[in-house]
């Protein structure tokens, strides 16, 4: 697609725009799913499309399409839509150096090199473990996908970047059922590089079966405020919901009140708390060399020594706030314009072992795995897959799932201890925002202890 940046530049001049970018995308993906003994779905997808984003004054016009031969018409359409949306204060994009680059996919074991039959056989072996487990484990759910994407980005400023990306993920779920009670426990997997994460999960699948079985008789969780220890997986969802979303500058670049509340330098956590969001860890699903505005990614610190030190930017939010773009403008696909999103969000490891984290707790909850989480304003939720009572520093019986909830102004300050083991591990889910889900993200985190966290329970 040589010359695409020239087309973008001449269209920008001819149509009287401030900026114009073109993205073209080709993705080939495979999906496999089991429910119970049967392979329910084996599918293959070929997705090819593109989009044009045009800026004029205050307005963004965007046009996405499947037929590349329509490109010129779609450029005019995006320009026309930008005119409709141009009704206010001019958007200033933070300056970046134009880049011409090619970024090939860096793969370990390439999923494209593994025949579909072999993928099916690997998953079938896990399925047989679940179906043969007994003890109330009744059925299974297994989901797997992989995709390879070629992205071309060209801007009227002269950038032309071609990137190849590999993404894969899924989950192996054991379902236990008895007398109308259904419990499930999953082993998630995901990678931005390597099919081998799908291999070698046998023991974890057995463990998931045992856990699902033990949950059949589990009582509801206790409700109220209590100390909680989060395993590295849930700790990742916690940091994503507790602080990641509030660091996205598109929530504050035009909201002076929020900018004041979340001002740089404000202390929100203990001095040993450091939170970052990074695009540079190869192999993570949140890894990307350039974001979807052609900005080189980096490791961005959001909190250092408990203080707010940074935020996540697109070129527009950085331009408005007089800061530097961080490479966080991401689009789910060519069907969407880029918006400010996280990449790999984490907490820097501390010193504590798991025993240290549990040791001082008289009564509390140990929470592991995740179902999901959400943020609204200063409040957020994160839901573990399994929770166990902690008594006198020991993990005891499981309780049913319950949503944990926090408030950024209390909960970060209540982090008492941070573990030393970071789980460099991804799942097959993703983040949702502005109708763009699931976007691949990572959370490479250590376990943490929170002195007081609100647990929704029925007792």
């Amino acid at each position, binding site marked *: 697609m040589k010359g695409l940046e020239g087309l973008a530049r001449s269209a920008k001049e001819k149509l009287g725009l401030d900026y114009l970018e073109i993205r073209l995308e080709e993705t080939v993906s495979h999906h496999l799913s089991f429910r119970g003994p049967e392979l329910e779905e084996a599918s*293959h997808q070929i997705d090819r499309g593109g989009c044009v984003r045009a800026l004029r004054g205050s307005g963004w016009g965007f046009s996405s399409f499947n037929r590349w031969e329509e490109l010129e018409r779609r450029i005019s359409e995006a320009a026309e839509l930008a005119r409709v949306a141009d009704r206010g204060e001019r958007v200033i994009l933070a300056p970046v150096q134009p880049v011409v680059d090619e970024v090939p996919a860096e793969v370990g074991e390439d999923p494209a090199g593994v025949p579909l039959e072999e993928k099916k056989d690997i998953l079938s072996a896990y399925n047989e473990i679940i179906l043969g487990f007994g003890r109330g484990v009744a059925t299974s759910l297994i989901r797997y996908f992989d995709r390879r994407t070629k992205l071309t980005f060209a801007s009227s400023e002269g950038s032309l970047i071609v990137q190849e990306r590999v993404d894969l993920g899924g989950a192996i779920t054991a379902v236990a059922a008895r007398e109308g009670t259904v419990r499930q426990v999953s082993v998630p997997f995901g990678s931005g590089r390597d099919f081998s994460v799908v291999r070698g999960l046998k023991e974890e699948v057995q463990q998931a079966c045992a856990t699902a079985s033990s949950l059949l008789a589990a009582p509801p969780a206790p409700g109220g405020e209590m100390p909680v220890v989060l395993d590295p997986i849930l700790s990742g969802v916690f940091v994503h919901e507790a602080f990641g979303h509030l660091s996205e500058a598109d929530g504050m670049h035009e909201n002076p009140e929020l900018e004041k509340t979340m001002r740089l330098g404000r202390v929100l956590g203990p001095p040993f708390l450091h939170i970052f969001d990074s695009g540079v860890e190869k192999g993570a699903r949140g890894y990307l060399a350039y974001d979807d505005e052609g900005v080189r990614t980096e490791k961005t610190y959001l909190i250092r020594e408990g203080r707010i030190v940074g935020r996540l930017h697109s070129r527009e939010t950085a331009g408005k706030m007089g800061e530097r773009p961080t490479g966080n403008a991401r689009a789910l696909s060519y069907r969407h314009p880029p918006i400010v999103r996280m990449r790999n969000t984490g907490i820097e490891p501390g010193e504590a072992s798991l025993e240290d984290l549990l040791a001082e707790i008289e009564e509390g909850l140990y929470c592991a795995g995740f179902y999901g989480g959400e943020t609204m304003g200063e409040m957020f939720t994160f839901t573990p897959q399994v929770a166990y009572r902690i008594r006198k520093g020991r993990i005891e019986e499981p309780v049913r799932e319950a949503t944990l909830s926090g408030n950024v102004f209390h909960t970060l300050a209540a982090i008492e201890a941070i573990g030393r083991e970071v789980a460099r591990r991804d799942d097959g889910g993703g983040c949702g925002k502005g109708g763009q889900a699931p976007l691949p993200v990572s959370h490479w985190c250590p376990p943490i202890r929170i002195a007081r966290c609100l647990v929704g329970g029925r007792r």
Partner: protein
Amino acid sequence: MSREVAERCLDRLRGRAEAAEVFLLVRESLPLEWEAGKLKKARSEATSGLALRVLKGGRVGFCATTDLGRAEEAAEKALELASLSDLYRGEWPEQAPSPEAQGFYDPEVASLTPQRMADTGEELLEPIRRVHPKVQAFGGVAREVEEVWLLNSRGFEGHYLASSFGLWGGGELVEGDNMLSAYDGWERRNLGDPEGEARRLGKKVAGMIERGRTNVPFRGGKMKVLLSPRALAHLLRPLVAALDGKAVEKGLSPWKDLLGKKVASSGLTLIDDGLYPFGPASSPFDGEGIPSRRNVLLDRGVLASFYHDLHTARSLGMEPTGNGLRGLFSPPRPAPRNLLLEGGEKNSKALLASLEEGLLIEQLMGAWAGNPYSGEVSGNVSLGLYIRGGEIQGRVKNTVLSINAFEAFREQLAGLSSDREWVGSSLLPYALFESVPLSARG
């Protein structure tokens, strides 16, 4: 031109498989979006693509593409994948449904101009902007037209046009460390009176912000809770999962053996209607060519039917219900159409006025997360108002609701409002539940 591609694919597969099916989708949408009180983005999205299912040796292969130039390659791929899958039990239809069904397409939606959409959005945002000078209003106006072709080698040929018009709006208010966010929106297949409805929606959101501005202390406990239609949708999720023919077939549904039995309060009647005039999920036939229809799922608390695609209906020996829904990239599977929850006698104002002490929950956050088949629903009360003596006292914060939806609809349901609202493709009333556990930071 697209249709010719579909026929070429079918021809290519004829004689090489027991049956083949082509689903073709052409969609044009135009959403306009407001951020920080201002129109910010105007987007056009054009999608065209096809999906193929091939039945060979009693097994189905699936391949989809948006690259019509590679349609024949996709057909070969689908044929190849069929050998991997397990046995498929559905029987694809031979005859197209009667062309009389209506209420899916409104030409006024298709001809709506971006200029009129921009003006409609301004009407929506105006009441929200006026609540408080620091409110950040956001919103959107969207129109969409889609054309669907479904052809199979058994002779079925179906085609329809469907339109969709949507409005959404919200506001965020930050006052120091106190943040408030309110949101509402809907979509449907006809245009109606967009400016008038935009103003009504804007005023509704403005009212939510107004009522939520004052916080009151709250210690939690068990009490009566009146859920807005939007919050109620979270409680309905486990029921919808339990009614899914796929979950029944696979033994996941806690209701799998309870057909004809009472599973909920006799006040609860839930209907799935694929033909509801201009309902957001209405269409003449489903993703497999089965005519859309109206099915009673729960009849005064009695489990009357599940919803199915062809495969689940056949493998359970039940009647197909026209619920095999699909996206371009996902094969048909059971999904609800327009879900209609019957209302009660009193309106929501009267239900609220009857509360001596309780909460009105407008919005729940995070309550979608969890295993739906367990029924456990737990979420942060992101917008909840404390009620005493039938009057709103103020907003409660840092509070989590936890309930088991199956138990709640059986034992705790105390009333449903006569007024209903669309939440996605569900038409829901306000619902009053008794002794609901609420944990609060205090």
